[in-house]
C-alpha cells in the first residue's frame, strides 16, 4: 500500500558508479559516492508509530506549527519538557505544548494572543503522540 508523499517507494537509492566503467578512465568520485539524502528517513524514525496530521488553527504558531502545516506525529516517543504534543483532554484532541513544572505537567498554547490554557483539574489527559517534525509543501503536489 502506498502511503502519501512521505513514503513514495521503499526503494533505497543505490549508489551508482559515477560514470560507466567502459569509458576507460574511472571517475575520481567513485570512492566517495554517497547515498542521496532521503526525505523519508529525515522525517520518520519509527514508521509503524508515525502519523501525518494536518494542523487547523494558530494556537501553536510560536512553536513553529502553522494552520495548514502537516505535523509528523510519533506515538512511540515520550513527551519531554517543551515538546509539542497531540493530546486528548476529556476526549477533545488538540496540539499543545508539554511543560514540566516540578513533577506536574502543564499544557499550554504557543501564541501570546491566547489566554493561558485551563482545563478541569479532574480531566482525563491522554497523549496521542509527540510532534517530531513538520512539513509545509508550498507548491501543491497533485497527490
Amino acid at each position: 500500500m502506498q502511503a502519501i508523499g512521505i513514503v513514495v517507494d521503499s526503494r533505497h537509492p543505490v549508489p551508482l558508479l559515477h560514470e560507466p566503467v567502459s569509458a576507460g578512465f574511472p571517475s575520481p568520485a567513485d570512492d566517495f559516492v554517497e547515498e542521496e539524502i532521503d526525505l523519508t528517513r529525515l522525517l520518520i524514525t519509527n514508521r509503524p508509530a508515525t502519523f501525518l496530521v494536518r494542523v487547523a488553527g494558530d494556537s501553536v504558531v510560536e512553536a513553529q506549527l502553522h494552520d495548514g502545516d502537516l505535523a509528523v506525529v510519533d506515538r512511540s516517543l515520550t513527551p519531554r519538557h517543551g515538546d509539542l504534543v497531540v493530546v486528548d483532554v476529556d476526549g477533545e484532541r488538540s496540539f499543545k505544548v508539554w511543560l514540566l513544572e516540578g513533577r506536574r505537567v502543564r499544557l499550554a498554547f504557543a501564541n501570546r494572543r491566547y489566554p493561558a490554557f485551563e482545563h478541569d483539574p479532574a480531566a482525563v489527559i491522554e497523549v496521542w503522540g509527540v510532534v517530531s517534525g513538520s512539513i509545509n509543501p508550498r507548491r501543491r503536489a497533485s497527490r
Partner: protein
Amino acid sequence: MTTLALVDGNAFYCSCERVFDPRLKAVPVIVLSNNDGCAIARTSEAKALGIKMGDPWFKIRDRCQAQGVRVFSSNYALYGSMSTRMNAIYRSFVPDVEIYSIDESFLDLTGFSRRNLPELARDLRSTVLRWTGVPTCVGIGPTKTLAKLANHLAKANPALGGVCDLSDEDERAHWLGWTKLEEVWGIGPASQAKLRALGCDTVADVRDMDPRPVRKAMTVVGERIIYELRGISCIGLETVAPTRKGCAVTRMFAARVEDLATLEQAIASHAARLGEKLRREALGTDHVTVFFHTSEHDRSPQRSVSTVVTLPEATNDTLALVKAATWGVRRVWKDGHRYSKAGVITVDLVPLAASQRALIGGFDRERGAALMTALDTCNRRWGRGAVVPATAGFAPKRTWSTKFEMRSPRYLTRVDELPVVSAA
C-alpha cells in the same frame, strides 16, 4: 518444543476507527460489510446492546440510531494500512511472522525461553497499543490450534489481561476441560454436529478422541485438529505466501443492473482489476469465467449464468482480459432481469514468463507489457483507478459501484483525507 503465538486486534475495524476519533472511545461502534450490508465488527459496548455479528444493516438501523451507536462503512484502505504497521511491529520482536488475515498473525516464539514468554507477550501488546492505538490479545501454545484457542480465551476472560499461555500441560488440561468444542479453530457447524453425535462436549473430549474414527468422519483435517490439541504441531508456520492458484474479482452491485451497457462496464472494471492483481504476482491466465446473477431476495425473474472465455495463450494484459470478459457478457446476455452481482474468476494461474506461447494469434507481450507498466505506474502515482480502460467507465459516474456511504476518511493513504487536529 515449538511455541507459537496468535496475535489479533480486538474488534479490529472498530479499533482502527477509534484511533483517529477520540469521541468513539467507550461508545458502541459498528462497522458494516461491503455495500453497507451487515455488521462485521462490533465493540463490546455494541455487543452489549445485542447487535450480533452479521446482523443486516436494514434490520438494526433504527435501533442503532435510537441507542447512539456509531456506524461506519468498511474503510479497507485504512484497515490494511494499520495492519501493515502492526505486522512491522511483530517483525521487530520476532523474525518469523505469518500474516493469517488482516488482523491476525502467527508468531514463532520457539527460540525464546519459557520464562520470558509472558513478559514478551505483554511487551508486544503494550507496544502495539502505544505505537498504533490498536488493542490486541495474545494466545500462546505449542501448536497453531492451541495458540488460536488461547487467543480466544484471552479475549473471553478479561482477567487474563489479554494474554493466555497454554504451553503448560496442567493449565492446558484445565482450560480444555472448561471450553466448549465450538471454540476450536477448524471445527465448523457440520463438524460440531458430528463430534457432538460422537459424545463430545468440551475441547478436552475432542482431544481425547481416538483419531481414526475422526479421520473417517472429518478427513485428515479433523485428525490433525486432535493431534494439534494434544500439543503435536501438524500445521507449520507459512512465512512465505504460497503461489496464488486462482484469482477473482466479484462485486455485489449497489443498485440492481438491468441493461447490457452497465453490466459490461462493471465486468470491464472487474477484469481491469483482475489484470492488476495478476500482474502484481507476474501470473497469467488463458481463460476467464464471467458470471452474473439476480438476487434470490427479489421477486423479479431469477437468472444465474456463467460462461468461460478462452484466450489463445496465458496473459495478464488488462486490455486482453477486458475484451474477453465483455465478449463473454454479450454472448450470454438476456434482457428482462435485475442483476445483483457480477464477477470474473480465473483458476489454474501460471507464471507468465514460463507459460507456453500460442503458435498463432498470440499476444504482443512486449508492447502489452510496456503499456501495462505505464498503466500500473499511473495508478500507483495518482491512486487506484486513476487510469482505467474506457469500457470500465468513469468511476464517479458508475451507478453500480460498491456503496460505502458512511466511510471514514482514508487517513493514512490520501493527503486530502488526513486527520485534522485542532490548534485553536
